[in-house]
C-alpha cells in the first residue's frame, strides 16, 4: 500500500484526489496535458436518463474566488454515455469512475443509476441531489432530509455498487440530512456541491448568467466546504469525500484533517489543467517532509 493510497467502500484508489463532476468531462479532455491514470479517480459529468441540452448562454461567470456556472446538466443521456463514451474511455483509462447520477423523479434516478451500476468502469454511484441549476430536480431532493432519505433508499435497492450521496450546502440542516441518508443505506457522502449565487453586469445591472443564478465554486468556497465536512464527520460512520474549493495540496490535507477520506477537485482543474499532477506532487512532498507513512492517518485529526 502506497503512502497516498485510500480506500472508499472497498474501492482502492492510488491517491485521494478525485476530479469533481462537471469539471473533467469524461476524462479524455485532459489527455493533452497528462496521463489521466495518475488521478485517484474522477466523477463523470452529471448524467440523466434522457439527453439534456442544458441552459442557455452565458453559462459561466467569474468572481475573485472562482466561478459561477449554470450549465444545467447538459449531457447526452445515460445510453449514449454507456454505449459511446465508456468504450472510448476504457481505451485510455484503467481505473474506475464515479458515476454522477442526476434526475427529476425517483424513477428517473433509479433507472439511470441502475444502467450505470451495470458498467464495469463504474466504481461508485454518486447520487447528485444538489444541482442548483435545474428547476424541479436535483437540489430539490437535497434540501429536505425526508426526500433525500427516500431517494437514497430507492436507489440503494436498485444498485449493487457503493452509493455515495452528493449534498448541497444550501440544505438547512446538513447534519440531520446526512445522518438520515446514512440510515437509508448510503455508503458514503460527497460534501459539497456548489453554493447558490449570482453576478450582475456592472454596466447594465442585469444578471451575467442567462439562468440568473448559478453555482458558486472555486477556492473562495473552501472554508465553507471544509466546515461542512468538519461539521458532519462526527455524526456519521460512512466515508466523506470533501469537495469545494480544493486547489492545492495543503487544501487536501485540511480536508482530510476535517474528516474527509478523499477529496474532489473541480474548478481548479478548469483554471489550471495541470492542477492534478501538481497537487499529487505536493501531497508526496508533504508526506515525506512530515514523515507520514499513510495519508489516511490524517483523516479526522482535527477532532482528536
Amino acid at each position: 500500500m502506497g503512502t497516498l493510497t485510500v480506500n472508499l467502500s472497498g474501492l482502492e484508489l492510488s491517491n485521494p484526489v478525485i476530479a469533481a463532476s462537471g469539471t473533467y468531462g469524461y476524462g479524455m479532455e485532459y489527455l493533452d496535458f497528462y496521463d489521466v491514470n495518475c488521478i485517484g479517480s474522477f466523477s463523470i459529468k452529471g448524467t440523466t436518463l434522457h439527453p439534456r441540452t442544458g441552459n442557455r448562454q452565458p453559462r459561466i461567470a467569474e468572481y475573485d474566488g472562482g466561478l459561477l456556472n449554470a450549465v444545467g446538466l447538459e449531457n447526452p443521456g445515460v445510453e449514449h454515455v454507456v454505449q459511446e463514451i465508456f468504450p472510448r474511455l476504457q481505451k485510455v483509462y484503467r481505473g474506475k469512475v464515479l458515476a454522477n447520477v442526476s434526475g427529476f423523479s425517483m424513477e428517473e434516478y433509479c433507472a439511470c443509476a441502475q444502467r450505470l451500476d451495470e458498467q464495469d468502469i463504474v466504481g461508485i454511484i454518486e447520487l447528485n441531489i444538489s444541482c442548483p441549476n435545474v428547476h424541479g430536480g436535483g437540489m430539490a431532493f437535497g434540501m429536505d432530509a425526508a426526500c433525500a432519505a427516500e431517494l437514497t433508499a430507492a436507489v440503494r435497492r436498485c444498485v449493487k455498487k457503493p452509493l455515495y450521496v452528493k449534498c448541497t450546502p444550501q440544505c438547512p440542516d446538513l447534519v440531520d440530512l446526512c445522518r438520515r441518508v446514512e440510515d437509508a443505506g448510503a455508503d458514503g457522502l460527497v460534501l459539497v456541491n456548489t453554493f447558490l449565487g449570482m453576478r450582475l453586469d456592472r454596466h447594465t445591472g442585469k444578471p451575467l448568467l442567462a439562468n440568473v443564478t448559478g453555482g458558486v465554486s472555486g477556492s473562495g468556497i473552501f472554508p465553507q466546504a471544509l466546515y461542512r465536512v468538519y461539521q458532519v464527520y462526527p455524526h456519521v460512520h460512512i466515508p466523506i469525500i470533501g469537495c469545494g474549493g480544493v486547489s492545492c495540496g495543503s487544501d487536501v490535507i485540511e480536508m482530510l484533517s476535517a474528516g474527509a477520506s478523499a477529496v474532489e477537485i473541480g474548478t481548479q482543474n478548469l483554471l489550471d489543467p495541470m492542477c492534478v499532477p501538481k497537487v499529487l506532487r505536493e501531497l508526496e512532498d508533504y508526506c515525506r517532509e512530515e514523515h507520514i507513512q499513510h495519508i489516511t492517518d490524517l483523516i479526522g485529526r482535527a477532532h482528536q
Partner: protein
Amino acid sequence: MELHTCAILDNHPVAPETYQLTVHCAAASQTRCGQFADIAIPGKKLRRPLSITDWTDNTLTFTYRVVGEGTDWLSRQHQGELELLTGCGNGFDLTAFSRDILLMGGGIGCAPLLGTARQALAQGLAVKLLLGFGNPEQALFQKELSGLDVEAVYCYDSLGENVAQALVRLGWQDLPFCACGPLPMLRAVCQASQAPGQVSLEARMGCGFGACMGCSVQLKERMARVCKDGPVFHRKEIVWEHLL
C-alpha cells in the same frame, strides 16, 4: 493544446481601443487559421480567448479590442511574459474550398482573417475579403492586405453599408465563405449568401479545452462546445434562434 509561457515581443495600438500583440511561442507552427489561444490575466480566474490573427514558426499575433478589465490589462503590457493555452479549437477547414474563398468579418471579428487569407493563398485559392467596421477609423489590416494578392473590400456602418449589404452589392453571394463577427452579422450574411460557408462563433468560456460544457451551444442535431468542437461550424448546422 499546450500551455506555454510566452515573452511579449510587441503590443501596440492599431485602431481606437484596438491593439495588436505579438508573443514568442515555440510551438506556434502547429497553429491552424481560425484557432484561438486562451490568455491568463493575473488576478482573473478565467483565461481570455483571443483568435490567432497570424503566426510564424515561433510567434503568435493577436488583434484585440479593449472591452473590460482583462483586455485593458493586456493593452498595458509591453514586456514580460504571458501564460497561454495554445492550439485551442478546430479552426477554419480550408480543404473544403477548391477555387474561390470569401472571408467576411465584422469589427473585431476580422481578427482571425489575416492569417486565414495568407493560408488560403498558400493553398492556391483565389481570396476575396469583405470587412465591415463601424467607421473608417476602426478599419484593420489595410496595410497588411495591400501587400497580399487578394481582393479586399471594406464597408462601414457610418457610411451606411454593412457586410451583408455589401455582399449583395458585390454579387458575391455564390462564393463559398468563412465568416467571423457578431451573431446578427453572421446571420445576415448567411441569409444573404446561398453558398456553403463556415462561421466562427463566440461563447463565454470556462476551461477553453472541452471539460466543463460552459461554452456549449445547441446546433441543429447536436450540442457542441464552442471551445473544442468549434469555434468554427458549418452554416448548415446552425439554428440562429438557438443562439440569438
